[in-house]
C-alpha cells in the first residue's frame, strides 16, 4: 500500500495535493483497493463551489457504490477527462494509478486553513492499518 508524503489525506479516504491556490483531489490507494474494479466515475459538479465534506461525485465499482467527498471547500474547476465517460472513460486508471493518472478533480481552494484538519501520510497510514 502506497502513502505518498507530499499529499494530505481525509478520513473519507480522499487525498489532496496543493499547488498554490489549486488543489488536485483523488482517492487513496487504500480506497481503490477497498472498492475494487472501478467501472464508472460520475462528477457533475464542475463549476460549482462546494463546502468541505460535500459530495462532489460518485464512484461505481463492480461490487459497490461510493460517494466522493470534498476534503476541503472550493470551486470544482476540472474533472479528469481520462475518467470522464464522454472522453477517456477509463475509470480503471484509479485502480492502476490512484495518485497520478487517476486523479479525479482539481479545485480552487476556498480557505487553506481547512487543510490543517487533514492527515499527513503517517496519520493516515495509522488510520487504515
Amino acid at each position, binding site marked *: 500500500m502506497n502513502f505518498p508524503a507530499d499529499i494530505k489525506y481525509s478520513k473519507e479516504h480522499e487525498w489532496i495535493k496543493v499547488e498554490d491556490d489549486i488543489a488536485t483531489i483523488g482517492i487513496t490507494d487504500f480506497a481503490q*483497493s477497498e472498492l*475494487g*474494479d472501478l*467501472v*464508472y466515475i*460520475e462528477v457533475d459538479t464542475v463549476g460549482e463551489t462546494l463546502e468541505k465534506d460535500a459530495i462532489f461525485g*460518485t464512484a*461505481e*465499482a*463492480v*461490487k*459497490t*457504490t461510493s460517494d466522493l467527498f470534498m476534503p476541503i471547500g472550493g470551486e470544482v474547476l476540472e474533472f479528469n477527462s481520462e475518467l470522464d*465517460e464522454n472522453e477517456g472513460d477509463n475509470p480503471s486508471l484509479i*485502480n492502476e494509478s490512484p495518485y497520478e493518472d487517476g486523479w479525479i478533480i482539481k479545485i480552487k481552494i476556498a480557505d487553506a486553513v481547512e487543510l490543517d484538519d487533514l492527515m499527513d501520510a503517517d496519520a493516515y497510514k495509522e488510520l487504515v492499518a
Partner: protein
Amino acid sequence: MTDQLKSTPLKETHIALGAKMVPFAGFEMPIQYTSLVEEHLAVRNSVGVFDVSHMGEFMIEGPEALDFIQHVISNDASKLVPGQAQYACLPNGKGGIVDDLIIYKMDDTDEKFMMVVNASNIEKDFRWLLSNNRFAARITDISDEIGLLAVQGPKAKDFLQGLTHTNLDEVGFYRFTIGNIGDIEDVIISGTGYTGSGGFELYVKSGQLVKLWNILFDRKSDITIAPVGLGARDTLRLEMGYCLYGNDIDDTTSPLEAGLGWITKLKKENFIDKEFLVEQKAKGIGKKLVGFKVNDRRVPRKDYVIEDLNGLPIGKVTSGTQSPSLGIPIGMGYVQIAYSKPEIEIRINTGRKSINAIISSTPFIKNS
C-alpha cells in the same frame, strides 16, 4: 458482542496469495485475490477455483430419512437416484424460505442423504431441521469436518480429468460420484456449481483441503487456473440469475414469488407450507423476482427502489452489479406482477437519481 470469526484450513494460503480477507457469514473468507473482473473472466473462459468450505453440510440418515426430507424440502427427493443431487429450498411454515440447499442421495437405500446449505444459515437450518424432525431421522452437522472447493469453468473437466481415475464425462450436471483427486481418495466429485460455466465441486475431509488445493495448483497443465474470491462468485451467479439467500430470497419471500416454482413440487404428498403454496399458486402471486438490465452507467444496488415510468414505487432491488461479461449494470429485484414481463421499462431510484432499466429474462448471458 463480537463472535470469533471462523476460518477454513486455506486461510494462510489465501493470505499468501495476496487475497483480501473479509468477514462473511461468520468466516474470514477471500473476497478477491487480484481483480474481481479478472477472476470472473477466468471462470467464464478457463478455470477458477473457489474455497467454499464455509458452506454447511448435514448428514440425514436412518430408516425415515427420505420421509423427513420430503416433509421439509420443496422439491421431490423421491425422484433421486443414487449419485444424483437436487436443488431445493426449505419452506419456513409462514410462506417464506428458511434456506436454499442441495440434497445428495448417497446410496441406493433411502436412508443416507447429504444436505448442503448456506454458511450464513447453518445454525438456523440445523435448529429448524431438528424442530421439524417428527421422523426417525438422524441429522448430523458435519460442516466443520468437510472442506469444499468449487472448480468451475469451461475447461474445468479437461483440467480435472488429468487428476482423477473417474471418467468425468460420466459425472453429469447434478450427478456425483466418489473418486480420487491425485492421491486423495474418497472425494465427492459433484457436477454442481454456482457460476453457470460448468465444472465440479469437490468435497473432502477438512484435513485434506490444503492438499487438494495444492494438487490443483501444482498440476502442470496448458489450462490456466486462477483462485477466485467471493466477489466474483457473486457476479458470476448474478449473471445467471441464481438466487442468493439473504438478498433475493429470505424468510419473507415465497418460492413461487422467487421463480423457484420449478423446485416446488406441489403434487408431492405433503410438505411444510404445501397448503399455503397451493393456494398462492391458485390465487396468483402479487410480486415476482425478475432480472433487469440498466441503460445507464450507474449500478443498481440492494434496496434501491424500483419505479414505474411515472416514478411510482413498484418494487425493490435485491441484487445488483456491473456485469463483467456484458459490461453493463444488471440486477434482480421484486416487482409487482404487472411489471414482471421481459422488455417492460422500469426505473431504478439510486437515492439521488432515477435510471432507466428494462426487465430481462435470466440468465443474462448465454454460455456456449
